């Protein structure tokens, strides 16, 4: 526990990180950079779980264990997303979302 730094400071950091991720998710055109924005969002959520565990309910472990599950799900998601991106690049020679319409054919 650090002196003078409360739970709100950590929450403000993770809020800023989350909304920067949302900004990137909306503006980016390249599939890999969209994936990076999603990673920022997931990481912000994991920070929130850990901080709530530490500062509000330190007698339990629920926040940490759910953060571990979030990290596992993020790893699975990135593996699948990168397989899809590589496949998409092989058929399309580009990783631009505007062309991802062809994935349904």
């Amino acid at each position, binding site marked *: *526990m*650090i002196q003078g*730094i*409360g*739970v709100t*400071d*950590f*929450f*403000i*950091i993770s809020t*800023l*990180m989350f*909304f*920067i*991720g*949302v*900004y*990137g998710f*909306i*503006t*980016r*055109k390249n599939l*890999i*950079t969209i*994936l*990076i*924005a999603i*990673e*920022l969002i997931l*990481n912000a959520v*994991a920070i929130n779980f*850990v901080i709530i565990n*530490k*500062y*509000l*309910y*330190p*007698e*339990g*472990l629920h926040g*940490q*264990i759910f*953060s*571990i*599950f979030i*990290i*596992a*799900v*993020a*790893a699975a*998601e*990135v*593996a*699948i997303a*990168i*397989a899809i*991106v*590589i496949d998409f*690049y092989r058929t399309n020679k580009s*990783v631009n979302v505007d062309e991802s319409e062809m994935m349904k054919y």
Partner: protein
Amino acid sequence: MFYILATVIVVFSFLAVTSRKVMRATVYLLFVLLATAGLYFIIDYNFMAGIQLIVYAGGIVALIVFAVMLTEKIGDKIESPSNMQMILAGLISIAGAGVTISVLLGHDFKQSTQNIGQNVATIGENLLNYGKDGYVLPFEVVSILLLASMIAAIVVAKRKFEN
């Protein structure tokens, strides 16, 4: 120390979503994830920091770097979004962050004064415990999810093409 990490997180996450070279964006993401591990270290959650370093900073960033190398020409700049889109997305994000931060500042959190150290053994016991405070069900679900995603990644990436 906290303020250094906070500045690193905010600045590099902004660079990660605005940089026009994909490889640089990936490196900025790596810095953000390392600074997050630093946050876990300063609140004494060493096990979480270790997981963050191994899985996020080690595994996920390496996967993204491979994807970048397989799909992009390094040094190519990606097109920047139109001004209209940037302004709209910026307004949405700033509005969302403003609302959330104002609610956070107005709420009175009942911070616990206990400072309980965590040990890894308790986390391991809870993960495999099926009684009270046990998490064996989500643990098994995540293991099935990882297996399924591994198979799916192999199947999707090794698809044969007619041409």
